[in-house]
């Protein structure tokens, strides 16, 4: 705050004018000014600063014009900062790999009520086929 005295008065005025102009423009256009929004992949790559100048040119232009995508990137930056101190946790427990089938089946059943039969039908088919083969072997 001690620097405030050094600020050129004209610059303070232009900041204020610009602030009001930009906010008025944004409020007038709302969030959905564009139909084709950036996908999750491009948004992430931009926010992480992974794109070269060549790659980012169309994205920067889009963000200037599209308040929705710009708002998403701003939110993602805040989120990134909030989790900046997160340690990458790679706890590797020697569980049975098949556990994930149960996890997903449970989720699907909870959400759609058809989890096991719909999504893991291919597993069941394979299992049934294997069972049938085994049965045939036993019969022989």
């Amino acid at each position, binding site marked *: 705050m001690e*620097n405030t005295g050094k*600020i050129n008065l004209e*610059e*303070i005025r*232009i*900041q*204020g*004018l*610009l*602030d*009001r*102009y*930009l*906010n*008025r423009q*944004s*409020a007038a256009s709302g969030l*959905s000014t564009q139909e084709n929004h950036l996908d*999750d*992949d491009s948004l*992430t*790559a*931009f*926010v*992480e*600063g*992974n*794109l070269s*100048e*060549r*790659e980012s040119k169309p*994205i*920067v232009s889009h*963000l*200037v014009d599209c*308040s929705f995508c*710009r708002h*998403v*990137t*701003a*939110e*993602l930056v*805040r*989120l*990134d900062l*909030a*989790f900046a101190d*997160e340690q*990458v946790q790679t706890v590797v*427990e020697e*569980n049975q790999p*098949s*556990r994930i089938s149960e996890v*997903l089946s449970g*989720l*699907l059943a*909870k*959400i*759609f009520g058809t989890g096991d039969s719909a*999504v893991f039908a291919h597993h069941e088919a394979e299992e049934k086929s294997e069972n049938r083969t085994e049965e045939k072997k036993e019969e022989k």
Partner: protein
Amino acid sequence: MITEAGTQQPDLLNECEPVMEEIFTRCNENAPNFGVRLECFKESLQKTARKYILNSTEEVSAAELSDFLRQIQAEDLFLALACANGSERAWWEFDQQHRSYLERVARHLASTDIDAQEVVDTVYVELYGTRVVDGARVSKFSTYSGRGSLRGWLRTVIWHSLVDLHRASHDEVSLDEMTENVGEGFAHASFAEAPQGGEAEMIEQISKQRYKKATVSAIETAFANLDTHEKLLLLYYHVENLKLREIARMVESQSSPLRDWFQRKSPTREKNPESRIHESTIMRWLEKSYTKVLQLFRTELRAKHELREDEIEICMELATQDLAGRNLYQNLTTT
């Protein structure tokens, strides 16, 4: 040299096949039981290259494409591809590495634990994929390109899912209100509201019609004449209310396009190109942008509207009478 987009692609991609194979070999050695085939991996790398670097009319050299391929988050892409292909081992690995993180992100963003859990469940289902096209299951993982980190991509997926969840439960809520209720946007709900003392009041403040028109037109032109990088920086600061610290975070990566653009304009870059970006640096970038806007604003009033210096002063005074509240330095106190 400018070429027609796409004409150089097949040859270039063929030329870079050894690089793709080298990356695949490394990934496959680290996770041999994911069952990802070389062809599938190469296809995915080619898709990423077409999306980000081979889509323009500018010529790309084989060396540039090789560098690009080496920058891809290959291990993350390998895991994502294996999960998309339904590898049980890969899913188990993904669950171990990322589930708790997804849950923490969802809890951070959602208003209730129930919402957070619902979002995580929905994202898992999307990632696995329930839609079948031409006999093949379509997994959300297939849209991940490896250009950003998998964790960053998952954060974005969670954020969008929460917005969708909110939209589904609030049919009549506008998109503006909806995004304001997700995450930090809630604390910055004023971003899309008409600011206090909006245009009507601003117009009232300007007594003379001629000065009012000139002022509005000049600030519009001044902003329009900035480079897109300067515009984006100003929009992040003034409209999205990003703090200097948050903008600094965004340009932390040395390859950040915003950082690269602003540093190219700075003489200090040559001395210390790898220096960390501090909030004071962002403040300097903003100051330079304000100076440029001011110059363009004055030039426009003088040249196009033919105003004298004393009239320009009237424009500035009338337009900014009640604007003393916010200035560039206020956010420094919060960091």
